[in-house]
């Protein structure tokens, strides 16, 4: 395999690393959850996840992450660039989309409507509602539980 193959080997190695890393991290979380849920069934005070156990999963993924980093640095140094996902040559050929008629009028109407809605929202307490939600963490929403 000669040096010109670097453009093929490194991307494949990086792809394998990415997939493997994602699988390890996902599988680690699932294993921790199954294990923790079983422990919680016996003792309701047990935590399903702990920082230590999460750390163990990260440690397991660390060697692969280092391999990934090395491959990434080498590919940067060798100038291996990602091939972009352009469409094939038989892509569409068509006339540009025309701007809608009265575009300025539509725009102005929408801007005025938006400003009226914002003012109405401030008056009916909508802005305060946004503030209340934004300064409190909804644990369920961010995925904490």
């Amino acid at each position, binding site marked *: 395999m000669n040096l010109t193959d670097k453009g093929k080997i490194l991307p494949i190695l990086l792809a394998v690393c990415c997939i493997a890393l994602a699988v390890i991290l996902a599988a680690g979380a699932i294993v921790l959850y199954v294990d923790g849920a079983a422990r919680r069934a016996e003792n309701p*005070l047990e935590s399903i996840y702990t920082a230590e156990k999460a750390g163990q999963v990260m440690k397991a993924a660390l060697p692969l992450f280092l391999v990934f980093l090395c491959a990434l640095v080498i590919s940067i140094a060798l100038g291996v660039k990602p091939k972009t996902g352009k469409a094939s*040559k038989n892509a569409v050929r068509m006339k*540009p989309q025309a701007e809608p008629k009265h575009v300025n009028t539509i725009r102005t109407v929408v*801007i005025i409507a938006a400003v009226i809605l914002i003012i109405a929202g401030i008056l009916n307490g*909508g802005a305060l509602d946004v*503030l209340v939600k934004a300064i409190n963490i909804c644990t369920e929403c961010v995925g904490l539980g």
Partner: protein
Amino acid sequence: MDKKNVWQAFRPTKRRLVQLYAALLHNAYLRGFIEGKIYEGKAKALCVPGLNCYSCPGAAGACPLGSIQNALAATGHRAGWYVLGMIMLFGVVLGRTICGWLCPMGLIQELLHKIPVPKIRKSRVTRTLSWLKYGILAVFVIAVPLYFGLAKDLLLPAFCKYICPAGTLEGAGGHLVNPANASMYEMLGLIFTRKWVIMLAIGLACVFCYRSFCRFLCPLGAIYGLFNRFSLVGVKTDADRCNSCGACVRHCEMDVKHVGDHECIQCGKCIAVCSQGAISLKAGKITLKGPETCTEKKPAKSRKTLFRAIAIAVLCLVLVWFNFLDPSIRQRENTPAESTAAVGYEVGEQLADFTLACYDGSEFHLADTRGKVVFINRWATWCTPCIAELPYFNDLYEAHKDDIAMIVIHPEMTLEDPAEFLAKYGYSMPCATDGEGDPVKEIVGGTATLPQTIVLNRRGEVVYNSVSSVTPEKLEALYAEAAK
């Protein structure tokens, strides 16, 4: 490859610099990342244009997508004009320029796509998949929050809860990596596992397929896409110059059919590939980015320098304001520390005394509860897990009424009436609203995260203090432990 060529190959473009700038503005509260707390100032009433979780420790504004879901869920109480107006304003002024230039999630996706792996090309399949985001918008952002809000009076921001990778990465991840939030691990369970796996899958997809989340899943992009054709800022095509060669569409990595259609993120990459010089990025009649062949007068170098100086000054001003000058920061810093080591909110410490007026007219005085096991629960009407666990607290209270002192406390700032909310369910446990400035929240070491449960033994010592949901079994086990 020599150093110069490496730099040329990976040199950040102007768009990348703008994306970084916008990401920093979206997350201007940098001390949040160090302290592991979110920004709680009044500026958070303003929505930011891009998808940026407002539970991220750095978030300086409210996420428009989270806000619109909450507003729709609260339709029965109050119409969500404010958020709707904000989104319309962002849409009509910027359209999907927000996705291409300002959105922090867009930046993350593009950086992931920089990893040089074999890429998936756009095709009919990806074009079909790009309609998925409209389905997600209809179901997860509109229908589910609206149904649960109107029919069950429950806040269920379904997109945030089941899909949003920004929430998992910035909100959950941003807190969990900070050692100050070690107690948050206690609340992790099925929801976290599910969202973690979804986030990894989306991240992996972005490595192989350009902006996968943006193209196939993001409902905010779907909304802004509706405004693309008449937004003030955007990529425009000169029909007289265009020869319909299709180079722009072929070169584009998004699933566009035309330059500037609902899938176009207005990144302006097509400007360079148009041999006719027919494409330019415009704000009204002003050309922001035109072809090299553009005959229009380019701004003078001195004006460019002035513009850059203003941009840097604005960034510095915003960072200083959010991190040092905002009144909410100073209020937090001026909160006096506890005077004796024995008083505190950690396990083994004695909770400081407080008194609250309950909704039933009685008074809860912590010092009067000695000899009983004390349960303190911090909840809120907008917090779905809090509402779900209230019956468990009521059942526990009913079962051990003579041996338990209990109070459920709602934060001071609210537009709902917690007493009226609780009256519907007929709970018998004492309920109160925290005092001005939430003093009990400070006493129990509370944060912006709810629900929080604190259990004291008969001597008033903390045996449990955690921000997490509880089950009936867990409450019984806590009672047994505290009653020893």
